[in-house]
Every structure is written in structure tokens, then in C-alpha cells.
């Protein structure tokens, strides 16, 4: 108690110096929580989005299918298993046929992935109802990124060339009947969506698909010949790896921020111990043990963290809550990054995150306060009283 009492008196007495240290530490503290909040918010949002727009609750892939190798597409197709017919009728599984193709927007040539999906599916969020054929034209939908890249709009015709099952080239004009906006670029960039039956006819692959997206777990892990089930853990593996690598980068930023703030406290403590050596000598002359004096200085340094929590709470909580409400708007062109990003990132704060930050900041502050305070044990009190220690 005495240490805390003395520490508070000394900190208040030090005035502006204390305020600056506390303020810097509070900035580090709030920024650490904010940064982690954004990273967690982004991760959460990205996972929700890819599940809604792309992965569903898992996917069956044809055994030859490799999404990273377009040359596998030609052989990666098989008849849609009959076991899934009922679910297909309900729209709770969505077979997708994938093939390589080329489009010629405004006379240019662009390689794309042409995907066929059931217009009545209810499994993923792509607005496939716009693929229902109403006339002669074959309807197609594009993501907004793809539309921007090829300067296409609703109502435009798009010439597409593909190879059928026998390797023969064929071409057709598709009518763009809809554009969709998604945070998931992997269902958007370089892709054109048409109705599954259209693509099956165009390629001569009747009732065949490359992958089947499922909406609920009741259709998961079925034993289907030529099909391999990919659960969410496998599908999200790359994203989880990216989150991990982001977390490392984040931790480095975290450490830099904390190190800057702690350096200021360490420096203040070192300076304090030499500047206040007369005080230390006097404390000892009045009957304090060296351990008690070290305690006073360590508590005094650690109190910076406690005060920074209070100061950080005063200005940080309203700021963090406001950011939670409005989110952080993404800069122009963010949608070309190839990452699942929304228009703005809504931070996700958790009690665990705040508590961990509090503990880390407080413990590290205590350590950097204790390290210089240890020098007191080596002080000769007689020299300290006279301020003779260099």
C-alpha cells in the first residue's frame, strides 16, 4: 500500500512527464486493441462471406478437380450423383460445372472460367435467378469486378468461346442479365456464370458437374464414387493460413507499438533513478529497505500502465465504439486486391482481446520499470544522498 501511495504521489508530482508517458502508452494500448479488432473483424467477415458466397457448408469435388490448375478442368467432371437429386430439387445442393473459356469484350481477348450453376439453387448467395432463360438469349451474370474489368453492363452481349467434351471449339453470344456485388473475389474475378443446363449442353456433358456445394451438414461426407468431400476446414485452409501470416505481421506491429511506448517508460525510469538518487538515498536513510525502494520505483513505473488504461478508456472507448458502428471504409480500388474485403471493415472486439492486451501492457510495463530499478541495489546510500553517483 505504501508503495502505491508513494507511487501515486510521485506520478502526480511529476505532472507533464507522467501525462506524456501515460498518453503515449494509452495510444499504444488503444491502437493495439483497435488493430486486433480490425484484424479479427476482417477475419470473421471474410469467413462468413466465403461460406455464404462460395463454400456453403462444404463441397464435393470431382477427384480430378484442382481449382489452382485450369488444365484439370477438362477431365474434372462426372454425373451428378442420384443420391443428391432430392436435395438438388430443393435447392439445398448446388452442382457447378466448370470449364475454361475465352471472352472477347470490345474485340479484346480474355481467358475466363465459365461456370454453370442451377438458377434455382438456394445454397450460395450468387443471384442465380437471373440465369432463368426467358427468350433466345443465353443469360449470364458477372461479378462487379469482372464487369468493370471487361467494361460490361447489364444488357450487353458477350462473345464466349469454349471447347466441348470432345475438344472442339464452339462460340456463342451470352446476354448479361445481371451483375452482382460480392466481397468474395474468387466467385467474381475472371468468371462468367450461366445456367448449369446451358453449359452442360454447350459442352456435351449432360447431367455432369465439377463440384457440388452443399447447404447443410446432412449432405456432408457421403460416399460418392468419383467425388471427394471437402469440409470447411479444408476449404478455409488457405484463408486460415493467410490469417496466421497476418497475425504474425500484426504481432510485429503490436510489438513495435508496445516497444515504443515501453521505451519511453524505460527511459523515464532510468532517468528517474539517476535524477532522484538523493531521494533514493534519503528513503534508505529514513529506514526503507532497498527492496522497498525498488518496489516504489517498480510500482511507480507500472502505475503508468494503470493510468494509461484509465486515460485510454476515456478517449479510446468512444472511438472504438464509433468505429464498431461505422467501420473503417476501405480505399478506392480495394476490391481489386483479390481478398475477401467488404466496403468497410467492422472491428470485432472481444473481452479476451481486451484482457490479453491489459495483461501484456501491464506486465511488460512492470518489467521495464523493474529492470532499471534493480540498479538501486548497487547504489551506495552515502553517495546517493549526496547525489554523487554518475
Amino acid at each position: 500500500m505504501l508503495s502505491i501511495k508513494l507511487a501515486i504521489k510521485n506520478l502526480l508530482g511529476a505532472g507533464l512527464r507522467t501525462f506524456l508517458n501515460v498518453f503515449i502508452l494509452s495510444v499504444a494500448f488503444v491502437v493495439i486493441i483497435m488493430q486486433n479488432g480490425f484484424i479479427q473483424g476482417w477475419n470473421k467477415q471474410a469467413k462468413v462471406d466465403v461460406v455464404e458466397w462460395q463454400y456453403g457448408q462444404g463441397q464435393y469435388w470431382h477427384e480430378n478437380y484442382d481449382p489452382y490448375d485450369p488444365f484439370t478442368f477438362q477431365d474434372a467432371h462426372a454425373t451428378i450423383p442420384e443420391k443428391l437429386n432430392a436435395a438438388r430439387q430443393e435447392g439445398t445442393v448446388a452442382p457447378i460445372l466448370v470449364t475454361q473459356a475465352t471472352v472477347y469484350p470490345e474485340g479484346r481477348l480474355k481467358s475466363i472460367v465459365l461456370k454453370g450453376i442451377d438458377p434455382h439453387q438456394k445454397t450460395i448467395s450468387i443471384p442465380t435467378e437471373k440465369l432463368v432463360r426467358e427468350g433466345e438469349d443465353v443469360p449470364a451474370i458477372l461479378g462487379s469486378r469482372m464487369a468493370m474489368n471487361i467494361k460490361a453492363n447489364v444488357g450487353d452481349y458477350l462473345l464466349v468461346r469454349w471447347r466441348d467434351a470432345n475438344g472442339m471449339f464452339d462460340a456463342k453470344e451470352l446476354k448479361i442479365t445481371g451483375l452482382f456485388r460480392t466481397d468474395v473475389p474468387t466467385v467474381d474475378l475472371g468468371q462468367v456464370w450461366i445456367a448449369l443446363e446451358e453449359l452442360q449442353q454447350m459442352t456435351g456433358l449432360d447431367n455432369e458437374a465439377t463440384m457440388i456445394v452443399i447447404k447443410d451438414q446432412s449432405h456432408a461426407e457421403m460416399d460418392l464414387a468419383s467425388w471427394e468431400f471437402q469440409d470447411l476446414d479444408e476449404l478455409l485452409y488457405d484463408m486460415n493460413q493467410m490469417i496466421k501470416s497476418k497475425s504474425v505481421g500484426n504481432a510485429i506491429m503490436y510489438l513495435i507499438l508496445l516497444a515504443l511506448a515501453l521505451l519511453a517508460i524505460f527511459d523515464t525510469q532510468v532517468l528517474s533513478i539517476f535524477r532522484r538518487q538523493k531521494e533514493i538515498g534519503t528513503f534508505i536513510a529514513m529506514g526503507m529497505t532497498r527492496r522497498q525502494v525498488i518496489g516504489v520505483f517498480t510500482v511507480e513505473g507500472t502505475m503508468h500502465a494503470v493510468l494509461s488504461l484509465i486515460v485510454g478508456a476515456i478517449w479510446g472507448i468512444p472511438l472504438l465504439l464509433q468505429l464498431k458502428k461505422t467501420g473503417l471504409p476501405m480505399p478506392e480500388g480495394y476490391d481489386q486486391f483479390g481478398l475477401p474485403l467488404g466496403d468497410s471493415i467492422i472491428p470485432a472486439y472481444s473481452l479476451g482481446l481486451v484482457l490479453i492486451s491489459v495483461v501484456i501492457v501491464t506486465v511488460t510495463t512492470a518489467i521495464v520499470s523493474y529492470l532499471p530499478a534493480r540498479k538501486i541495489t548497487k547504489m551506495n546510500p552515502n553517495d546517493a544522498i549526496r547525489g554523487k553517483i554518475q
Partner: protein
Amino acid sequence: MENNTIIKTDNLVKRFPIGGGHFTALEDINLELNTGEFAGLVGPSGSGKTTMLNILGSLDNPSEGDANVLNTSIKSIGARRASQLRKKHIGFIFQTFNLMPVYTVFENVEFPLLLLKMSAAERRKAVLDALEWVGLTDKIKSKPKQLSGGESQRVAIARAMVKKPELVLADEPTANLDAENSHNILRTMEKLNEELNTTFLFATHDDKVIKYLKRIIYLEDGKVVRDEQVKK
């Protein structure tokens, strides 16, 4: 040691290492001080006055011999007992006052009582009494930087006296003061010595202090060359 003997040294020697050899700051000091004395170690710079005071205040250890302070051997005292001895029984007054700059006068004087874990009410009474002894009750809220040198030293005296120690060790207490302030604080200490029977031991070479001493112990090159009672 007799009952009213507060300090007794036996062939006290203090050496400091210098280069490959050592410097003898005190050599075979044999002294005895009784309770209530108002005595001074007098001598030129380097004669060993402060070293002697530091050993008696348990801030330093003798190289040879021993000093017995309040029935405690300084030679064999551990750090914990030394701090207890200083906390409860010894008051220090320094040449440079050594007040805590961020504390008020009241808080500076209160500090030794905090270490003794006295209650707030007891502390307040003791601090006000001590400030009354030194005539500074009107300055309790002032910070050290708002005080004159004389006032600062009076605060230091109040701080040393507030716990009513048996022994006060004052190292050149007037060195930073003008004549008038020196006389004021010496009169204050003299009064406290008479009223509370506190033993005062000064280290000084200031004539103004010497005039007030009732016993003068002359030191020269670490040896006691003369020890005389002064008749007033």
C-alpha cells in the same frame, strides 16, 4: 555500555579502497556519547566526520572495530535490522535538505511516520506538532521549491524529529544557510534537545554551529585529537 550511553565505538577503523591500496578515513576511534548530548564532530574536510556519521547511522560498516548504537552492533547488523534502527530510532538531517520535491511540507514530514505504519490521525497530530516545533505550521501545503533555504532545513529538522528519535545525526546542517537562518535552526535544535532530551550529533566545520555545541570532538586525518565539554 552504561544505561544512558547511546553511542560507543571501540577502536573503530574505516578504510576505503583507492587504486591498488586503501585510504584510512577513520583510525582507532574510541568514543562514548550519552543520551541527551548536543555534540559535534568538528574538523576540516576529509577528517572523517561524515564517514563517522554514516557508520553511526548504519549507512556504512566499519572496516575494523565496532560501533554500538542504541545497544546495536553496527559491525554485525544486517540490512533489515539497520533499516529498522534508522526507521525507529535515528533521524537524519542533511546539508542539502534532501526534501522530496513532489511532496508538500506536510507530506515530507509525514513520510517517516508512513514507514512506521501509524494511523492517519496519529500521523497528522505528530506532523502538526513537529511543524509547530520548527515554526512552519503556515507552510504545510507548500512544496519545497516554494521555501527558502532556512525553511527547507526547518522542514528537514521536523522530518527528522517527527518520530521522536533517540538520536539525530546532522551532517553540515548549516552549510547552505546564511547566518540568520543558521542561528534559527540551531536554536530550534537546541530547544528540541532540551525539551525532548534527543541526542544530537553534528558533523561540521562551521563556527556558527560550534558555538552551540555542548561537546566538541575534534577530528583530524581520521583520528580524535581532542574531545572537550563546553561550559556555557
